[in-house]
């Protein structure tokens, strides 16, 4: 299936979870904010959120320092 991640269309296997998609990109889910179809998905929902064809996902990983 095709999903759009940070504006780029890409192929993903059916039913991939948000957690797995984030992890396979080498990102750390504990530092990532995810917006799925314009809605913020809280971190505790990442493992049970399954992506669907045509979903638009924005991922933002924070780095430390403040």
């Amino acid at each position: 299936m095709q999903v759009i991640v940070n504006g780029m269309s890409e192929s993903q296997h059916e039913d991939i979870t948000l957690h797995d998609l984030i992890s396979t990109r080498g990102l750390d889910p504990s530092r990532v904010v995810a917006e799925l179809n314009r809605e913020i998905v809280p971190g505790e929902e990442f493992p049970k959120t399954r992506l669907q064809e045509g979903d638009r996902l924005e991922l933002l990983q924070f780095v430390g320092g403040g």
Partner: protein
Amino acid sequence: MNLLEQGIAHHIGQDALARLQRVRIGLAGAGGLGSNCAHALVRSGFKRFVLADFDRVEPSNLNRQFFFPDQVGLPKVVALGANLLRINPDLELELHETVITSKNVHPLLAGCDAMLECVDEPAVKKLLAEAMLPTAALFVAASGIAGCGDADRIRTRRLRANFFLVGDEQTAACPDTPPLAPLVAVAAAKQADVVLHHFLHQQD
């Protein structure tokens, strides 16, 4: 109107100042970003603040944070509150010496018109973003503010209607790229500028 307020009104006018003074601003983190950001916001005319930080002033903070050597050992929210009151003695400050968690984030920052994310830990940045983005409050976060050189890499991106992100989004604070005064101040000033622009130019 006190002397600072007269001085600010000279530049922006009394109506604009009155508008800024109604805004309630939450600052999560009173370190390098938070202390400098608060300083800029007080000089801009904002008056009502909620400050939250769990930490105390240490010598290693003095390279970039708006504190003084005689404040080492004090809770940062207490030291920052005192310093801000020297700029404007009529501030309304709400101080919380606490770690920010998923349990207290909502009660802590409820009622804020704008929230500045000025914490160190990426997991807490995420926690604040997830809590604040679904609300109507303006949320201004920072990511990637360490090191020195190429100051223009500290940029401001608008990611949602109410969400601005300041930083280069990649340079974490670490031994190779420590947090240093110039770029931390640039990032803090850019966060403050987003808030000032928003409330100075929005319609009532």
